[in-house]
């Protein structure tokens, strides 16, 4: 009885808040997905599966696939940049490591809009990169760096790589140093040790970082909106449009459901990887 009261006091407000303002709203979206769009943009509570049929339409499926491709590319590049960076940090002197990690994570906690805007400044026709290349005489005409999928990938990689560095650093740090020495003692070169002993033990970190980048990229709205220009639509922008321009809430809700389903599948997969690794790492 006492314990129950304690639980209610401690957990009640927080879980209540999350239930009311996260679980219920998300549930609401789920129900919207099976209703028709109202004449003036609201909800017409008539049951329909039309929204799901529309979402599977090649037009929207194409947008989904393009988003997945861009998010996948950003994820891959982020991992490729983050792995050696994290590895380098683990090799730095102990008292430097914290400082380096803070330096990695600092931009991650600043305003996302501004970080994205910084790339408009860098990539535009008179931006630092185009001006620099022109000044060096490498190019005559400014390169079209902005308002395309290249810029979107750059923006996503820029914004999310720090997290991947952190995730991989954490799993590198968990490796028993003696396993690396044991590999060398048993005759393996540095390269073989890296691929056969170090990388396999960091799979959970790679998975955690990768899933994070992919999920946040595929549902991203700001980066494609600001760096992709109006031409490049991704799922995030599509959902935005359904709610604020097209005023087709049921369809927007359906698209969100797809996004959440995808996210849950990926998180589940990542949890499985982490669990397997945790089991193996014991002792």
């Amino acid at each position, binding site marked *: 009885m006492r314990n129950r009261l304690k639980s209610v006091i401690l957990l009640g407000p927080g879980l209540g808040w999350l239930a009311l303002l996260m679980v219920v709203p998300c549930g609401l979206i789920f129900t919207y997905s099976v209703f028709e769009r109202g004449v003036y943009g609201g909800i017409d509570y008539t049951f329909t599966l039309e929204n799901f049929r529309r979402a599977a339409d090649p037009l929207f499926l194409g947008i989904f696939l393009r988003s997945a491709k861009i998010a996948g590319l950003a994820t891959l590049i982020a991992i490729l940049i983050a792995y050696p960076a994290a590895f380098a940090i683990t090799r730095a002197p102990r008292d430097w490591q914290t400082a380096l990690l803070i330096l990695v994570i600092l931009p991650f906690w600043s305003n996302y809009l501004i970080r994205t805007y910084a790339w408009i400044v860098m990539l535009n026709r008179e931006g630092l990169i185009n001006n620099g290349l022109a000044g060096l005489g490498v190019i005559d005409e400014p390169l079209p760096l902005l308002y395309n999928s290249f810029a979107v990938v750059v923006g996503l990689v820029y914004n999310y790589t720090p997290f991947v560095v952190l995730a991989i650093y954490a799993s590198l740090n968990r490796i*028993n140093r003696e396993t690396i020495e044991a590999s060398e*003692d048993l*005759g393996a070169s540095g390269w073989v040790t890296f691929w*056969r002993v170090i990388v396999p*033990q960091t799979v959970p970190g790679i998975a955690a970082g990768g899933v994070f980048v992919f999920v946040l990229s595929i549902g991203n709205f700001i980066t494609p909106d600001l760096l992709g220009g109006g031409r490049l639509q991704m799922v995030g922008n599509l959902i935005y449009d359904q709610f604020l321009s097209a005023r087709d809430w049921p369809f927007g809700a359906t698209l969100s459901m797809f996004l959440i389903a995808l996210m849950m599948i990926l998180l589940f997969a990542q949890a499985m990887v982490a669990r397997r690794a945790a*089991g*193996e790492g*014991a002792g």
Partner: protein
Amino acid sequence: MTVSIELRNITKRFGSVTAVDDVSLEIRDNEIFALLGPSGCGKTTLLRTLAGFEVPDGGQVLVGGQDVTGWRPRKRPLNMMFQSYALFPHMTVERNVAYGLEMEKRPRDEIRARVAEALDSAQLSRFASRKPDQLSGGQRQRVALARALVKRPKVLLLDEPLSALDKKLREEMQLELKRLQSEVGITFLVVTHDQEEALVMADRIAVLRDGRLAQVGPPQALYEHPATHFVASFIGVMNFLEGTAVPGGVEVPGAGLLHGACDFTGPASMAVRPERVSLAEVTPGEGLNAVPGQIAELAYHGTDLSVHVDVLDGRARMAARVPAAQVDAGAFEIGRPVTCCWAPEHSRILQPDANETLTGSRP
């Protein structure tokens, strides 16, 4: 007997700390050699220098007569069993054991056969496809051993091989390792901080202190004839009485001349093992050293009883070990006067160490 490993004047510094200070050692073929010392004495650094994980600042490492000082670990004909065992957590037992042979680029069939054989002789065949986390501590230790031995090294280095096991299993494994060593017939070099483990397992022991060799010899020699105060106190339990060495013994204030063989004069410690001390109610006859006192504490060990006696008016304490079978009911009780006696041939007279020791177990 041929020399398997030779260390010549090895010195290793970390910053301003000298971890190993001019150590020279010869380890023979087919012996179990223990590097023994308290933590921080440099024994692990010495082992890692041998394995190639540390490059010495001075000196040479020779294995089978060949200078391997600058060689990478993977080139050296010796393998190591790590303190944590360092099993690869993402590989099965079988893959772990096969790893070293794969690095030698052995033919597939040979690898399979040798791994199977190694697993079989380590009684691990049933666990071949398990991952390390699904094994008990003892099983993991056997995998680590099999993984190193399957490469047929000239020397096996063992870094605190039994420290992760509980006491009972540890005692079993000490004998198990000895048996294994005589089977495979290669040199075992064991690093340990546990003097009992070293005494049980090793053919010869090197005691290290502050990066220097304190004494090298067979277990019995170290126990019975410790060369320094430090070795005497680090190995086993020792009674010490401080005094001044004179021809024929040590003059201990309050106890007179205590006899023993002595070849120097000046400040000295009279040392005697508790099991050499007998307790008498009256002062015994000529020929025995005798120090009277009062029983202060009793500690029962099952096999025997430790009797702690305050001597020299409480300025020192001596312990005597009485076999439990010889203890009469009520013979010893706290506060009773008693005399500690021992024969002069069991006296060990030692000079104080250059820098006074803090370690070691005194009664």
